[in-house]
C-alpha cells in the first residue's frame, strides 16, 4: 500500500505555544488510521495542520504532492475534514449542508449522492428542510459526516466524532465509517478519545504525547502493549 498522506517532522504553533514538535506519520491509501493521546497532546492540531488551519512547518505530502495553502486548498485537493464539535453549518438546512459538501465538485451527480447518503442515514430525507442547528448532537455529527462524504473525498479526517454522544450512536457512526472503508476503500484519519473503539476500527494508530509521536503500530500491537493498556485503555 502506498501512503496517501505523509507528514514528516511537522511543527505547528499557536502564538508562543508550540503544539506540534515534529510529527511524522503516514496514512496508507485505503486504510483507517487513528491518532490517540491525552488532551493537549496535539491530536486536533495534527488534523488542523494537514488542512492548513494552523501555521505549520515541515513536509506534508498528499497523493504524492506537497500540500500547501489554507483549508480551501486542502478541500480542493480531496481532503474532507470534520472538525471537533460537529462542524455543521448550523444556520443552513440539512439538504443545504449536503449541497455545500459537494461544493468543490463540478457536477451533476449531487442529487444522486444525496440519495446515497440516505442509505447510510435514513433520517435525512424526511428532515431535509430542518435547520441543522436544531438537530440533536448525534444527528449533527452524522450530518457533518455525510456532508464530508458529499465531496467524495480521497481522505476523510474526523476529529473526535464520539464527543458528547451516547455509546449507541458512537457505535453506529464508527460502523458506518468501517463500512465506507471496506466497501468503498475510503481512507480515514480519525482522532479519538475513545481508544477502545478507535483501535477496533483502525488498522494502525499513533499515540501522541506533548506534540510528538510517542508510540505507533498496528491496532493489534497497541492493544497488546502494556503501557498503552495502562495509560489509555484502563485495563
Amino acid at each position, binding site marked *: 500500500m502506498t501512503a496517501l498522506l505523509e507528514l514528516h517532522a511537522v511543527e505547528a504553533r499557536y502564538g508562543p505555544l508550540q503544539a506540534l514538535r515534529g510529527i511524522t506519520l503516514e496514512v496508507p491509501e485505503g486504510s483507517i488510521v487513528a491518532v490517540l493521546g491525552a488532551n493537549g497532546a496535539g491530536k486536533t492540531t495534527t488534523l488542523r495542520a494537514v488542512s492548513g488551519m494552523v501555521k505549520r512547518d515541515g513536509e506534508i505530502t498528499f497523493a504524492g504532492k506537497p500540500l500547501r495553502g*489554507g483549508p*480551501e486548498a*486542502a*478541500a*480542493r485537493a480531496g481532503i*474532507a475534514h470534520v472538525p471537533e464539535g460537529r462542524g455543521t*453549518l*448550523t*444556520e443552513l438546512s440539512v439538504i443545504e449542508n449536503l*449541497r455545500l459538501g459537494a461544493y468543490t465538485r463540478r457536477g451533476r451527480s449531487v442529487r444522486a449522492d444525496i440519495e446515497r447518503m440516505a442509505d447510510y442515514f435514513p433520517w435525512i430525507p424526511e428532515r431535509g428542510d430542518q435547520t441543522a442547528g436544531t438537530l440533536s448532537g448525534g444527528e449533527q455529527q452524522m450530518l457533518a459526516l455525510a456532508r464530508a462524504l458529499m465531496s467524495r473525498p480521497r481522505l476523510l479526517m474526523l476529529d473526535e466524532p464520539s464527543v458528547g454522544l451516547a455509546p449507541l450512536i458512537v457505535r453506529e457512526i464508527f460502523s458506518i465509517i468501517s463500512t465506507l472503508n471496506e466497501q468503498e476503500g475510503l481512507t480515514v484519519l480519525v482522532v479519538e478519545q475513545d481508544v477502545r473503539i478507535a483501535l477496533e476500527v483502525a488498522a494502525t494508530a499513533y499515540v501522541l504525547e506533548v506534540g510528538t509521536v510517542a508510540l505507533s503500530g498496528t491496532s493489534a500491537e497497541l492493544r497488546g502493549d502494556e503501557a498503552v493498556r495502562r495509560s489509555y485503555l484502563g485495563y
Partner: protein
Amino acid sequence: MAAFFQQVVSGLASGSIYGALALSIVLIHRATGVINFAQGEMATFSTYIAWTLVTHHGFSYWPAFVVALVVSFLGGVGIHEAVIRPVERGPRIRVVIVTIGLLLVLNGLVTWIWSGEVRAVQSPFPARTIDVGGVAISWQDIGTIAVCLLSVLVLGAFFRCTKTGLAMRAAATNPAEARLVGVRVSRMLAVGWGLAAALGAVAGMLTAPSVFLSPNMMLTVLIYAFAAAVLGGIDSPVGAVVGGLLLGVGLNLLGTYVDFVGSDLGLPAALLVILVVLLVRPAGLFGKPRVRKV
C-alpha cells in the same frame, strides 16, 4: 379613505426603496459584521453612471439600468478588494472608518466628475395614474415597488438555489466551516460587496426620479435604510425588506396626518426608531436575540 390608500401605496413605494438599500446593508453586515456607511454614496455614484449613459451616450433607460448594475457590482467587488479586505480581520472600528472615508471619497468624486448641480431624471414609468377601486395609484409607485421587490426576489432565489449563493451564506455565517468544504471565503465576501452595491444601485436609480439627482440624494435614504434594517433586525434579510415597507408607510402616514411631524421630521422620526429599537429590542422584529458579546 381614497387619500389614505394613496398615501399607503406611495409609502410602500418609498418603503421598497428603503428596503432594498437596507437589504444591501444587511447583506454586508451578515457577511462581514460591519455597517457600510458608504452604501448610499455607492448608490448615488451608480445612479450618475446610469444618468450619463442615458443623457450623453444615447442609451435608453433599461439598458443603462443594466449596465449600471454590472458596473456597480464590479465596483463593489473592487472596493472590497482594495480597501476593505486589508482591514476586515482587524477591529470593527477600523472598517467603519474606512467606509466613512469611502463615503467622503465617493461623494467628492460625484461632485468632481458631474458637478454639484441638481439634475432632473426622467422616470422609466409613465407619468399617469391608474384607478384601482377609486384609488388613484401612480405608475411610478407601482413600477418602483415592482422593480424593488423583483430585485429582492431574484437575490433571494440566488442565495437559496445556486451553489455560489449557498457558499456565500456559509461564508457569512460559519466562515471557518465554509473554508473546510472548499469555499474561498474572501472571494465570497467580495461577491457580497458586489451584490450589495448592485442592489444599492437599484435603490439609487429608483430614488432619482422623485428627488432629483444630486450628490447628497441618498444621504436621507441611507438613514431610512438604517432605520429599516435596525427595525427588521440587522441580520435579517426579510426583516430589512419588511422594515423598509413599514417605515415607508409609517413615515408617509405620520407626515400626512400628524401636523407636528409634517414633511420635515422624517429624519428625526427615523432616528427615534433606530434608538428605540436598539434600546428595547436590539435584534429587531425578525432577528434572533443573541447573547451580547462584550
